[in-house]
């Protein structure tokens, strides 16, 4: 019987349990951050347990980190969480990219960047955007704090094997259209729970042509469609990306030989499939309060079909029939585990170069990691952003969820490269409009969204 890549990795990691029931799965990489780990370490301490495999565990601070002066954590409880992770890492012997460390950054950005994320692995983290790591041909998903404690203590996790969904993405991406538009378009079409209970695998010529960073963007937002994991098969691009990184295998040849076994035999192995032709895809902008409430930039916002729609329109202060260019943008956010990598910053900078953001717009640029920040500075991107009137910040999750001081004021419309437009997500009363970095850059310059296809992209 033909198998999916997911089946092959899963079956290899089962320690006990039968198919169809919860099975005990081995975890190859456990990533930690300061928000969802303190209660887990406390649980270990109470029960006199230790971290079973410190060599498969890696921690950093990202959610609470201030991006202006990282060492000046004014919020007492933020500081408590940051300090607690530092203490816990030390006490339990867990590797930590601490405050100010060159390796510090958003956990889903630094995993791949450090070569910790590798094909064929089972990767977990107490964060729903763990799906990002699936881009390497791994099983990667978010877990809760009790599960974090369980993985720390046992290096395993109980999971019922999900069904598999293959998503065939094909065609040449039009000029100005990016991975972000593919995943937003998919969720707008299929809804915010189409993937619940499924492990998603993307395949097709569009995926083959994508860079690793674009693939990460695609997998990252699978959770917004309900799928707790998204992935694609590892290929030469994957192997080249991993090679030479800090924690990459010493023997790459042997590793690659091993990783090459992970692919889906044929489409019939999937429990279900979807098809997505991207040749006519438009840039997407979200108008409402979940990522499925999104439309192509040139299309009107939909009619009110239910109470959720009515509440969403009321919250964002927009109405059916309007189009994205009519949204008055006063805030722009570049960053997050969705679009905070170097290629995203390069795209945004290429558009902002020689321009200035609209006077009413505040724009934050928050690199996904300190290394990305330094790489961007070497390329002079920081200067382009600053000359354009943007604030160039230290790395972290920042205004994607506003756990640090970076928040969008109430009632303000924010063009954002992040992943969630939930009520209050970027700050109480904030109105988030998700889009690609290119679209957000244009929105920052113009004070409203424009159709990127009509302005041309560098």
């Amino acid at each position, binding site marked *: 019987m033909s198998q999916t890549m997911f089946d092959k990795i899963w079956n290899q990691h089962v*320690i006990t349990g039968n198919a169809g*029931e*919860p099975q*005990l799965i*081995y975890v*190859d990489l456990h990533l930690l951050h300061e*928000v*969802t780990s*303190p*209660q887990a370490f*406390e649980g270990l301490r109470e*029960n006199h*347990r230790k971290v079973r495999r410190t060599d498969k565990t890696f921690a950093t601070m990202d959610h*609470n980190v201030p991006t202006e002066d990282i060492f000046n954590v004014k919020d007492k*409880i*933020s500081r*408590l*969480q940051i300090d607690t992770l530092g203490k816990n890492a030390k006490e339990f012997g867990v590797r930590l990219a601490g405050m100010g460390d060159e390796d510090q950054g958003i956990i889903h950005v630094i995993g791949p960047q450090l070569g910790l994320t590798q094909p064929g692995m089972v990767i977990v983290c*107490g*964060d*729903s955007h*763990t799906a990002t790591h699936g881009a390497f041909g791994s099983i990667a*998903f978010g*877990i*809760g*704090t*009790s*599960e974090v*404690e*369980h993985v720390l*203590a*046992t*290096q*395993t996790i*109980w999971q019922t094997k*999900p069904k598999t969904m293959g998503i065939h993405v094909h065609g040449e991406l039009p000029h100005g259209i990016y991975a972000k538009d593919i995943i937003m378009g998919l969720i707008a079409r299929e809804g*915010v*729970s189409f993937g*619940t209970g499924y492990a998603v695998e993307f395949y097709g010529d569009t995926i083959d042509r994508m860079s690793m960073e674009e693939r990460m963007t695609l997998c990252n937002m699978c*959770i917004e469609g*309900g799928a*707790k994991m998204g992935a694609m098969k590892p290929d030469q691009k994957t192997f080249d990306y991993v090679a030479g990184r800090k924690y990459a295998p*010493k*023997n*790459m040849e*042997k*590793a690659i030989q*091993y990783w090459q076994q992970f692919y889906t035999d044929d489409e019939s192995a999937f429990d279900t499939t979807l098809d997505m032709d991207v040749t006519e895809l438009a840039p997407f902008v979200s108008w409402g309060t*979940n990522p499925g409430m999104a439309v192509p930039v040139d299309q009107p916002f939909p009619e009110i079909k239910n*109470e*959720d729609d009515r509440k969403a329109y009321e919250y964002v202060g927009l109405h059916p029939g309007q189009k994205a260019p009519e949204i008055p943008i006063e805030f722009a956010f570049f960053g997050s585990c969705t679009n905070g990598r170097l290629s995203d910053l390069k795209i945004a900078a290429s558009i902002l170069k020689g321009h200035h953001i609209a006077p009413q717009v505040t724009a934050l640029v928050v690199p996904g990691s300190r290394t990305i920040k330094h790489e961007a500075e070497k390329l002079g991107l920081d200067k382009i952003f600053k000359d354009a009137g943007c604030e160039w910040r230290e790395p972290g999750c920042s205004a994607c*969820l*506003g*756990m640090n001081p970076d928040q969008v004021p109430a009632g303000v419309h924010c063009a954002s490269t992040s992943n*969630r437009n*939930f*009520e*209050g*997500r970027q700050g*109480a009363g904030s109105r988030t409009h998700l889009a690609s970095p290119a679209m957000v850059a244009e929105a920052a310059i113009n004070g409203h969204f424009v159709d990127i296809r009509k302005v041309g992209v560098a």
Partner: protein
Amino acid sequence: MEPITTITGTSVPIMKDNIDTDQLIPKQFLKNILKVGYGRHLFFDWRYNKDGSPNADFILNRPERQGAEILIAGDNFGCGSSREHAVWALKDYGFKVVIAGGFSDIFYMNSTKNGFLAIKLPRDQRETLAAAPADAKITVDLPNQEVRYDGQTFPFDIDPLWKHKFVNGLDDIAITMQYEDQIEAYESKIPQF
């Protein structure tokens, strides 16, 4: 963990679909290093006005709905962020069970880890329950896998392993540690490169 068998109590219906964990507990309340104390922040943005006073229109604040143990909700409950604080907040508030059309995978797993029952029922049955008067008792019978109300019985599915854990109040880590030999045997076979 407290064993759970049968829960009989009053209910609160919030039949909205896609109630995400940001709504269940907004991020400003995740900054804690404990598992308790989140109940007063449950549904914060809907439950309180801007000045911090209770929003009298929100069902959780109505006097006749106080002390409810059963939450009746729409589809895709608990979507979004993985924060387990959402389950802790529901539990800390006093809810023992949520009955919805479906759950995000992560929320569901989090509920199983905290002795908090998450039950799936079809919409028509949930609408019957949602229409129950504030003082009407609903019974959730886990051993028999059924919800009973007003002479009606609605059966539900639950994985036998989760059911066993709920009914016996078992600690996951202690269960897993019984497999230590198998975990070690697995580790000895992991390829090194």
